[in-house]
């Protein structure tokens, strides 16, 4: 591992001269277009990763207990699942087009280094698409046992699919497995080493995977927490709320630990990224953690709250460790500090908040064996879903913008990757319009699914108190 890091370090900083710089006035638009597309894809993908296991769990409960409301939930949720999957598929397709349309310099130089991962990812999507169709369309057409088995490949493909994409992203953060010769050509490519012997892969994958469960868990629980507040508390609604809640409430505290791991990986391989998370200008022993505030032009943080030595402790688990500051590289090599810092702090704040909410729930459950009684808990659960989505996007902004100005850290700058073609802004506008249509339809369909009546045998059990509607 160490020699890989050293290999990457060889061309870090001051490197990046090997590739022609593209004269592109639209760099910013290209970046925003990429960002918008990710912001569409990633929340949908969370459902591709986490939802199948929830649905299958429900189905399994139904088979085990023979109680109707579990299967009813599994069926209803599977409709939601395929709707969101369809949206995830097309937004993902657009992303693969965009890699070429917006970043041809990057693809031409490095397509062969990381392409393998996308190849394997493609097969994962095949499997996911095939079995999600079989699962959703074959209720009652094949035996119950077989039906539940067709769900397993969907779960597995969700894992391998995200593994492969994250491998690419991890490689961009910590490039290795190739060399650059005198002529500036990428040679000596070792794709397996580049992708899978990468120190960033696992923290990033675990962190993303948990994030997907947090997002899905709180979003679904939030919908049913709303029903709970309206007084709908029969078996069906109760199950629909507590199962996702249970998932999210365990994943959220775990995320703190994984996030700390991710931060340490960054500290090790990308010291400048870490320095911009924290707005740390001078290299400091026993560096303090600064919360809130704004990084100013004279390289200090205004209005921040300092906690002595905490940063050194968090980044290196040693209160006196030396943390490298931004001053060590030219300002040209800095990412936009405030964007990175704000999004990092947003993620951490929300992550901490979600973990606190989870602790509340778990505490009451384990001490009193009942659900929280106060309405505020359910209101908080309703908020937790959107907040988790914000944390998810903020986390990706931290990672991606924090990597700037590099597209391949220390090797290729984003301005060397971008397309030389004109008119990106028109593409952006057209895409925005089509996304509006897609989102509108998804919302409309989810509402229709929600308005479908419950199966009569379940509706009978869901007594709705007077005045709750």
């Amino acid at each position, binding site marked *: 591992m160490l020699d890989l890091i050293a290999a990457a370090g060889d061309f870090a900083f001051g490197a990046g001269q090997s590739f022609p710089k593209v004269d592109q006035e639209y760099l910013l638009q290209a970046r925003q277009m990429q960002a918008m597309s990710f912001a569409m894809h990633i929340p949908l993908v969370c459902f591709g990763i986490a939802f199948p296991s929830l649905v299958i769990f429900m189905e399994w409960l139904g088979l085990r207990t023979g109680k109707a409301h579990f299967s009813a939930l599994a069926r209803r949720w599977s409709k939601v699942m395929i709707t969101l999957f369809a949206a995830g*598929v097309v937004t993902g397709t657009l992303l693969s087009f965009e890699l070429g349309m917006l970043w041809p310099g990057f693809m031409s130089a490095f397509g062969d280094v990381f392409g393998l991962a996308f190849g394997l990812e493609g097969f994962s999507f095949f499997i996911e698409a095939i079995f999600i169709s079989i699962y959703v369309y074959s209720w009652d057409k094949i035996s119950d046992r077989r039906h539940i088995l067709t769900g397993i490949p969907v779960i597995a493909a969700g894992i391998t699919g995200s593994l492969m994409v994250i491998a690419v992203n991890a490689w961009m953060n910590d490039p290795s497995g190739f060399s650059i010769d005198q002529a500036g050509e990428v040679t000596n490519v070792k794709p397996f080493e580049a992708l899978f012997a990468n120190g960033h892969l696992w923290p990033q994958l675990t962190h993303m995977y948990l994030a997907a469960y947090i997002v899905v868990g709180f979003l679904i629980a939030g919908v049913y927490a709303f029903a709970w507040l309206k007084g709908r508390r029969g078996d069906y609604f109760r199950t629909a709320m507590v199962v996702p809640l249970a998932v999210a409430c365990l994943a959220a505290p775990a995320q703190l630990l994984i996030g700390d791991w991710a931060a340490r990986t960054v500290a090790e391989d990308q010291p400048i990224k870490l320095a911009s998370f924290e707005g740390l200008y001078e290299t400091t022993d026993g560096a303090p953690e600064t919360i809130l505030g704004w990084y100013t032009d004279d390289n200090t943080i205004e209005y921040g709250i300092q906690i002595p030595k905490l940063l050194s402790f968090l980044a290196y688990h040693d209160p006196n460790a030396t943390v490298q500051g931004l001053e060590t590289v030219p300002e040209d090599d800095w990412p936009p500090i405030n964007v990175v810092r704000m999004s990092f702090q947003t993620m951490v704040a929300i992550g901490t908040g979600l973990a606190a909410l989870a602790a509340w729930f778990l505490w009451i459950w384990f001490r009193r064996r009942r659900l929280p009684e106060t309405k505020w808990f359910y209101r908080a659960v309703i908020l937790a879903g959107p907040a988790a989505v914000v944390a998810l996007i903020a986390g990706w902004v931290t990672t991606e913008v924090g990597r700037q100005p590099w597209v391949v850290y220390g090797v290729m700058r984003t301005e060397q990757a971008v397309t030389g073609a004109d008119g990106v802004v028109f593409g952006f506008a057209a895409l925005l319009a089509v996304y509006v249509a897609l989102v509108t339809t998804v919302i409309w369909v989810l509402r229709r699914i929600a308005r479908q009546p419950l199966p009569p045998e379940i509706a009978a059990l869901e007594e709705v108190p007077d005045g709750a509607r």
Partner: protein
Amino acid sequence: MELADVPAILILVGIALYAVLAGADFGAPIWAITARGEVAERLKDSGHRSMAPVWEANHVWLIFVLVICWTAYPEVFGSIFSTLWIPLLLACLGIIMRAVGYVAGGVSGRPVIRYLAAVSSFLVPFALGCVIGAIVDGGVPPGNAQGDILEAWTGPVPIAIGLILVASSAYLAAVYLAADAERRGETELAVAFRGRGLAAGVVAGLMAAIGLLALHGDAERVFDGLTSGAGLVAVIASGAAGLVTLGLLWSGRFRKARFVAAIAVAAVVAGWGLAQQPMILPGLTVREAAASDEVIVGLLVAVAIGLIILVPSLALLYSLVLGGRFDPLDVASPGAAPERRELTPAGRRTLSAIWVAALVGGGMLFLSDSGVTLYLGLAIFMASLACGIVQLARSLVRA
């Protein structure tokens, strides 16, 4: 043949499968919006009924092609995608519009969605045809956006190939849907599709002939490749298969017609590959563009492992679908939803306020590069998004 050629063959196989499988998917909406006569109602949704369980899987072939291309021939990928970004983006927009129809599920019969799908059924094959045409007539020089981003794909060859693909998708769709209708015992519908298939087949054949003429003028090298040697064999095979399908359609043997029609399309793709090699872009051969052997071996190993899992899975899916085991999923089919809950005036005001806020915030975000407006726009946009989610959640629980 060398190692460096193998991925190119995989790419051609992927293109052929995409054209054959997804082509039918894009052709179907044409028949939905032109539906007339007694079976009009069933014509309108038969495309959706047949394709819904398989379209996602069909679609992955496109991703397969892209991925192989950028791994094995990175420079080719970068050159094509930067010069031809306009038609490629159009294709993408079309794909998203098509997906809207599937997302909408059982209510895809709605006029808005049918028209959206119809636009996409023109846009996607046409734009992808233009991309192929631009490669055929040498409009894409190697390098980052080195070709003219408009002229590269608006010459006679690209336009002709685009139109051919539109016609052949419509044709494939009619043939497949006829076979599906027959399987479901809907004879009248099958007959309706037979007529449409025959007409579209003739049009597609004529267009292909015109396309050859265009090639003669603008893409001498590929024209020669298609009119001599192995290329000629492929063209003849395709023509013959085309005629056989017409015959099979005429005599009502739809299931056989479906397979032979696919062969006709696949043969053209093969012919193109034979005629195009060894040069992929002007001045750049397939072998020069290829990644190192180590990368290609890695890729082929990955593909081989992938296929071991994929082939049986696909076989299972298609056997279930072609065996008629899947009914359409009644995701929110119109009959199932209870009476529509009208929005109260206050509710409608909130909803429009949210929309306006989203547009204003989104616009500010879109138009500014930095500073207060950008962040204010972001805040407004995210706030309206959050309100939208809350509104949605409220309506969700009023089941």
